[in-house]
């Protein structure tokens, strides 16, 4: 049985596209990444799964149960962290966390206290006085305190400082090791690459590719900038070459070892190897999708 399964899930807002024909299968216990630029349909997909919006056509199941018929049951198994962490501004952090537990009809105080301590969250403050990062932490506690079987996170790390991001992923890895399925959306490719076992790339409302991280990684490209030469080395997997002044700039999608060996022989004054920006990666999958 899959934790999440969607079949031709489609949502139109009036005539404008939300998502189209989304087919996903996230096995139980998986760590699944959902990558795409802003406005691609990540949140629409997630909000449909949670029953916040109803699909125009297609179906979705969570742990084998249709999202339309068993909403309460499904939601009690899910921990959800929205991309915008908004709460009742006049309430204190601890009141919000307790309210969330009460809505689930459960006492989660032990786990909540543990999470707050790990995330260094001051529970005596009012929500209105919190920064985005701290509100995100409240959101994380609310999503995890009841130990859900499925965690759905929409852009979880935006607004969290790097240390907290690390702690957050450490917690997620633990939950995953205990058997929980993790489904997270992101536009930060590197964090998905680091933590997820499978990933789907979505663009303009459609899934371009779903595969294991391993396979996706093989097609992964780097943006390489060299100074001191006027042409890229003659290697396979080089494209999108741009020249300017004494610099040359290209996308490389082969083995890093081969690249470094080739570069070692060149009279370089400077070299940078970076993640291509997200748009380039999507263009890569986009072109493959068109072929």
């Amino acid at each position, binding site marked *: 049985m899959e934790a999440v399964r969607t079949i031709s899930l489609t949502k139109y807002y009036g005539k404008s596209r939300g998502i189209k024909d989304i087919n996903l299968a996230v096995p139980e216990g998986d760590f699944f990444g959902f990558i795409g630029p802003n406005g691609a349909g990540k949140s629409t997909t997630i909000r449909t799964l949670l029953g916040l919006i109803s699909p125009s056509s297609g179906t979705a199941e969570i742990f084998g149960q249709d999202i339309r018929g068993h909403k309460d049951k499904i*939601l009690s198994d899910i921990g959800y962290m*929205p991309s915008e962490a908004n709460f009742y501004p006049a309430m204190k952090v601890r009141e919000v966390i307790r309210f969330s537990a009460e809505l*689930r009809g459960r006492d989660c105080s032990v786990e909540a206290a543990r999470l707050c301590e790990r995330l260094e969250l001051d529970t005596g403050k009012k929500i209105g006085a919190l920064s985005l990062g701290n509100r995100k932490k409240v959101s994380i506690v609310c999503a995890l305190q009841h130990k859900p079987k499925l965690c759905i996170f929409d852009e979880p790390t935006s607004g969290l400082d790097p240390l907290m991001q690390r702690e957050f992923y450490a917690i997620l890895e633990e939950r995953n090791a205990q058997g929980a399925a993790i489904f997270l959306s992101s536009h930060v490719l590197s964090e998905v690459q680091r933590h997820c076992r499978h990933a789907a790339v979505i663009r303009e409302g459609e899934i371009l590719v779903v595969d294991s991280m391993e396979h996706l990684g093989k097609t992964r490209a780097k943006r390489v900038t060299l100074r001191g030469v006027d042409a890229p080395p003659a290697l396979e997997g080089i494209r999108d070459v741009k020249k300017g002044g004494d610099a040359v700039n290209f996308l490389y999608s082969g083995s890093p070892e081969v690249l470094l060996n080739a570069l070692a022989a060149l009279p370089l004054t400077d070299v940078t190897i970076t993640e291509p920006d997200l748009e380039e990666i999507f263009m890569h999958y986009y072109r493959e999708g068109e072929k």
Partner: protein
Amino acid sequence: MAVLKHELRQGRNALVIWTGIIAFMLGVCVLIYPEMKKQMSEISGMFADMGSFSAAFGMDKINFGEFIGYFGVECGNVLGLGGAFFAALLGISALAKEEKEHTAEFLLTHPVSRGKIVVQKLCSVFLQIAVLNVVVIGVAVLSAFFVGEMPEAKIFALLFLAYFVLQIEVAAICFGISAFISRGGLGIGLGIAALLYFLNIISNLTENAEFLKYITPFGYTEGADIIANGSINKGYLSVGLVLTVIGIGMAFYRYSRKDIA
């Protein structure tokens, strides 16, 4: 129950302020009655003699020399209008505020069905209205006792009952609208309350517009009619109750299908 508790806590300050202001104003109106009474012989004639202006506020049918007559008009202005505004604000924001404040995504992703949320929010609105009325009635009775006026209990009770039903109706209509909007509807709520109030004034002015009394709940809260007839007009009241049920029904129907943006 968690949502109901939460709603009551969220609304506590507003409830205290509205209850305090309405109770205070009504109390003051009652307490100044002895002073007014002395001048009533002149004023009463004048009030009744201002033609359509008197008719608009139902003052042509009321004897200001009697406490209940005075109270019927003052009560209409203070508790009727004040209570209607409060009820409208409660009703119009009950569901819509979650989307306006972007808390709907938090609330609705917990395992509580939309139907249960609507029920609990509606209960919280009605409970808050009930609390306001109990306090206001208590203050009015105490102040009446203080100035030594004891109006006929039945009429007194009918007046308060009519205003309570009016507030429930206004709240229910606004509650129904609340399910359709996702931005703040305070303007809509206050506008509806004010519109209903003026519809009644218009219907008092001309017989051609008397049908308006069926539409506005201020039709059945008209102090002059209740005092003169010793009962609440059942025709106007029934339409009001139907509108109340429609408002609540719309809220359930719409909210359980709504896409939360």
